[in-house]
C-alpha cells in the first residue's frame, strides 16, 4: 500500500520588484527519483524603475506538458547580479497544487488494495 501523498503542481505566481534586471526563478521537487532536484527554471523580467511590484506566473509543467509532481518542493529566487537600481524584493507568492488520491510507484513495490468490502447488508 502506498503511504506517500503525491501532489501535482500546476502553476506558481510571484509578486516581486526587480528594478536592476531580470531575476531567476527555480522550482525543485523530489520526483521523479525521490531526491530534491531542479525541475523548472524561469525568468522574472526586470520591473519598472518606480519600484512598483509586478506579478509573473510560471506554468509548472515538464517536457511532456504534464504537471510537475512531488512529495516535497521548494522555490528559489536568485536576484540580478548587480543592484544598481535596487535589489530584488519578494512581496508574495502562491502555488497551485492538487494531491493525487492514489499514486503507486512500482520501483518501490507499492500497490493499492481495499479492505474486504460488503456490497449490501
Amino acid at each position, binding site marked *: 500500500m502506498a503511504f506517500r501523498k503525491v501532489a501535482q503542481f500546476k502553476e506558481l505566481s510571484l509578486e516581486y520588484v526587480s528594478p536592476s534586471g531580470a531575476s531567476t526563478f527555480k522550482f525543485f521537487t523530489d520526483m521523479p527519483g525521490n531526491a530534491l532536484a531542479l525541475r523548472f527554471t524561469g525568468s522574472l523580467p526586470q520591473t519598472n524603475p518606480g519600484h512598483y511590484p509586478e506579478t509573473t506566473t510560471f506554468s509548472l509543467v515538464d517536457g511532456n506538458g504534464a504537471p510537475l509532481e512531488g512529495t516535497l518542493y521548494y522555490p528559489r529566487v536568485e536576484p540580478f547580479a548587480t543592484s544598481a537600481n535596487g535589489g530584488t524584493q519578494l512581496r508574495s507568492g*502562491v502555488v497551485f497544487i492538487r494531491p493525487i*488520491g492514489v499514486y*503507486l510507484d*512500482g520501483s518501490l513495490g507499492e*500497490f493499492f*488494495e481495499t479492505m*474486504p468490502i460488503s*456490497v449490501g447488508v
Partner: protein
Amino acid sequence: MEHVALFGIIELQYHATNGGTLTLSTDLPGDAMAVRETRTLPTTAGSRRVIRFRLSGNTKGRLYRVKVVPTGNGIIRLYAGRIWARLLPSPQWQWYAIPIPETPEEWERVALPIPATGEWERVALPIPPTGDWERVQLPIKPTPPNPEWVDIPVDQ
C-alpha cells in the same frame, strides 16, 4: 445479514506509465478471500483513461477486495473505480463505488512562506522639536525712576 452479490463489470479510471495488474478477490465459494479475477491494465498514453472489464459471469461473494499493482518500475495514478453488481436474489444491477481516495478536480491555492510587506508606517526623524516663543531679557541696565545721589570725585 450480508447479502451475496453477483459481480458483472469492474471499471477503473487510472493513468499507468507501464501498465499493471488488477485482481478481484471474493469470499465465495469457500468462505475465504481468494483471487477470482485477474486483468491486465494496459499502459495509458499520456493521460488518464477509463477501462471496463466484463467479469466471468459467476463471480460472486459476500465480500470483495480490489488490488492494483504497477508493472515493473511503472507508475499508476488511480483516480476512481466502481463495480457493477446485483444483490441476490434481486434482479436489479447497479454500480457500487470502490473506496479509492479521491483526487480533487480543483487546484488548491497554497501561499508561499514569504514574509509580508507591511503598510506604510509613520516613523519620526530624530530632529529636536522647535519650542514656543520664550521671553528673554535683553542685557540693558534699567533706568531708576528717581534721581540718585552720586559722589563726584573731587580732589581733597
